[in-house]
């Protein structure tokens, strides 16, 4: 025997599931922060102790090379910004294609989204690096594609697919009454989309969009595998310049971890805050 729908809503069988970073959110509070600092200090001490020779301490090494590594980090940020820009614009178009009324466009958009979402980011990077030529000639004008530009395009592809999904999800989450009201006022579908639906969706799209940006930033290090000279490549070169001592690996990569952490953690905190704020509306 099935229950009448209104009665079913009253039963607290289970509370609704929210992947919430809201209530007891993971934050770096005093306890966790203290633990991290203690472990960092212990780690550095162990690393230096294992060295066993009189050498400049690991902190001095890092201080010496920090400016260079930070310029590498800035390059990573640059790549992520361009990839995000390119991916957002194309993703918006692809998302509108997913919502199109014409079946062929919808199906092609769906296929593209699936391909670029299901492929690993590294594979897509290889794809673009190896198959896009290093320069093309149009009308006797040579346009070079340096490595980092190809990498940016490689990162923009999964961004495009993810943004398309976010756009589609946001538009679908608006109540159908909005569409009905617009239709009753004789708006065309295109006007409805641009003047009514999308402006309302921007708020909903913001937290997942920022989440994608955080993912892209962390993915830019993949470019070191395909030969682009960014922070991780520089880290390896610095390590070689310092004599390739094994005990320097952990501090150098730890420094890279720290840079990314200091950049991405505030972004994620801000994202969670926005999510909370928009949910209560």
């Amino acid at each position, binding site marked *: 025997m099935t229950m009448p729908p209104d009665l079913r809503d009253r039963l607290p069988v289970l509370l609704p599931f929210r992947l919430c970073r809201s209530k007891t959110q993971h934050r770096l509070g005093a306890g966790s922060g203290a633990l991290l600092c203690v472990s960092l200090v212990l780690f550095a001490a162990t690393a230096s102790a294992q060295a066993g020779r009189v050498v400049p301490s690991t902190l001095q090494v890092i201080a010496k090379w920090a400016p260079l590594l930070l310029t590498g980090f800035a390059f990573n940020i640059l790549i992520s910004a361009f990839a995000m820009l390119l991916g957002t614009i194309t993703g918006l178009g692809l998302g509108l294609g997913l919502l199109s009324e014409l079946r062929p466009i919808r199906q092609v958009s769906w296929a593209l989204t699936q391909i670029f979402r299901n492929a690993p980011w590294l594979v897509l990077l290889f794809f673009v690096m190896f198959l896009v030529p290093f320069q093309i000639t149009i009308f006797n004008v040579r346009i070079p594609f340096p490595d980092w530009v190809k990498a940016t395009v490689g990162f923009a592809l999964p961004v495009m697919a993810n943004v398309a999904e976010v756009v589609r999800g946001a538009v679908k989450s608006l109540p159908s009454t909005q569409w009905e009201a617009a239709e009753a006022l004789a708006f065309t579908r295109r006007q409805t989309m641009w003047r009514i639906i999308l402006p309302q969706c921007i708020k909903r799209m913001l937290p997942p969009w920022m989440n994608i940006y955080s993912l892209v930033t962390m993915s830019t290090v993949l470019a070191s595998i395909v030969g682009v000279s960014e922070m991780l490549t520089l880290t390896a070169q610095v390590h070689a310049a310092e004599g390739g001592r094994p005990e320097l690996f952990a501090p150098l990569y730890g420094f890279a*971890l720290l840079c990314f952490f200091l950049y991405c953690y505030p972004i994620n905190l801000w994202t969670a805050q926005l999510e909370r704020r928009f949910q209560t509306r």
Partner: protein
Amino acid sequence: MDAISGWFQRLYESTGFNFSIFYDSYDWNRYVSGLKMTLILSVTTILISLVLGAAGALIQSGPSRLLRSLVNAFVVVFRNTPPLVQLFFFYFGLGTMLPATETATGMREPLLNNVGWAIISLSLFAAAFNVEIFRSGIEAVPKTTIEAAEALGYTRFKAYCHIVLPLAIRVCLPALNNNLVNLLKTTTLAYAIAVPETLYALKQIWSESQNVLEMMIVLLATYGILVGVLVWLMHRWERAMHIPGYSR
């Protein structure tokens, strides 16, 4: 099987599309062993990260402040740093600091090879996300249900095992499946520390045979199929775990 290899050989000779893995047994074996390594990496990391995630979520709702801070620090660090750098940190940073033995020829042989470090690093990375997912699932179990379990005589731990965890898993399954599919895609990072998985094997093949485009297509198709199979399995799991009468 000969028909397939014959067809691809003819394809190569007539059009120049060189799908060497289908007619050359050496290449095929390399591809299959790469595939096996990807599957090994995926299955082990998925299982380990699920266990770690459940344990972390249990600790997070427990009484010990110290343990809670530890798990919190772990989750915050692993979620906000690139997995590739984590992998390098573990393999190069920690790997060289651990004691090592010497092989017969006097070469330094670390205790844990690159596959082991890849599994450890990726499991921890995925576990950090799983802790948060499991915690959201646990928070969806109403306090009154736990109260009813207590009134029947269940201890806190028994209630967690028999009632809270089964309910939490059923509720958070879609988010969990998403994370596990991402984990399958993240196993490609092991390429960076020379783990012989699918990407590594195919790159070796196209470096030798110069058939980059064809091997790229095989690579994309492989991961497309792997992800598709995993998603299908997850859907089956979701349907089996569905609570009748609850939600659409």
